[in-house]
């Protein structure tokens, strides 16, 4: 006997809503300072360029990378 719930699963596949774009691949990015071209090194305040003082983010708080590993 055919599985009666297959119809339900098929309907769910067909009627699936897609919101925006699906991200299929992971990626890594580094943000470079648009003013001097320097990357952001660890152990610095990530809101501001450590070399020329350019502000990446318009906030007063400091953001530092947590210990990762």
């Amino acid at each position, binding site marked *: 006997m055919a599985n009666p719930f297959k119809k339900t699963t098929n309907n769910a596949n067909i009627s699936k809503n897609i919101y925006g774009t699906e991200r299929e691949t992971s990626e*890594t990015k580094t943000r470079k300072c648009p003013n001097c071209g320097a990357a952001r090194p660890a152990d610095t305040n990530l809101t501001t360029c450590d070399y020329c003082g350019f502000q990446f983010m318009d906030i007063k708080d400091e953001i530092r990378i947590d210990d990762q590993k």
Partner: protein
Amino acid sequence: MFGFFGNKKEKKQETAEHPEFIKLVERWDTFLSKMETRFNESLIQAKEALLDNLEESNYDIHPTLTAWHGIKAQLMAMGNKINTTYDEKVLPQMLNHKEHYQLLDQAAKGTYLREQVIHTKIERFEIEIEGEISIRFYNHAVHFLNKSFKCTQCGAKIEVRKDIFHAHYVTCDYCNTVNTFTPNDKITQIRWIVDNIAKYKALNEWDAMQKTENELMNMCPPHKGQDNTAYKNAFEKREKATRTFWTKYFTERAEYLPEYADTIEHDVEVKMKWFYEERKRELGY
């Protein structure tokens, strides 16, 4: 006398064991038995359809969990069917032989199957099926974190964390540059299903908790001034089982999300809060 004042109830009692009534009871029992068999078969079919769908949809968890909610509604409807059949078909025929109050045990058979068997099994099955779907999804999605990622500044290999399922900073060990790692959607979705896995892994503790809840439900709350020792003991047993379940649940969750390891004790207390509120209402302490 002349049959004018013949008691209707007496007449019905005379026919209480009427073969027609016995036949009706037998048909009702057969119907309930068939419903239970069909329900149990449906659980097997539901599991098969959902797990197949997860694989066939290339581990797209959305439609599989959506389908589960649809299937759950269909399973619940089987319970409702028992009630409607009794009210609309069985009861009117039985009333030809007995009074309403004499048929309470027949109604109770249907209620028992619906409440104690079907609803209880669905509740447990939900933990099981969501857990199994989630574990399969996790095993599939976590592989994406094992891929090789490179620092976009110097090209050296960087190690991303296997227990963070959202975008996070990663430092390159070679050039010390901070990279932002943005995971794909499947990695992100792991965070949504970790709770299902934790609950599934605490299923034995959940069973024990349900057992103590049922034991307490089957007891009559003591009246004022009455000895409440047995009731109090049942409450304490339930407290222990509930606490054990939540402790297991949060411990399992922290296995996948170590950031929550420090808050296990606090989280358990939050979950137990309603329990102590109930105890205060019922037992006054």
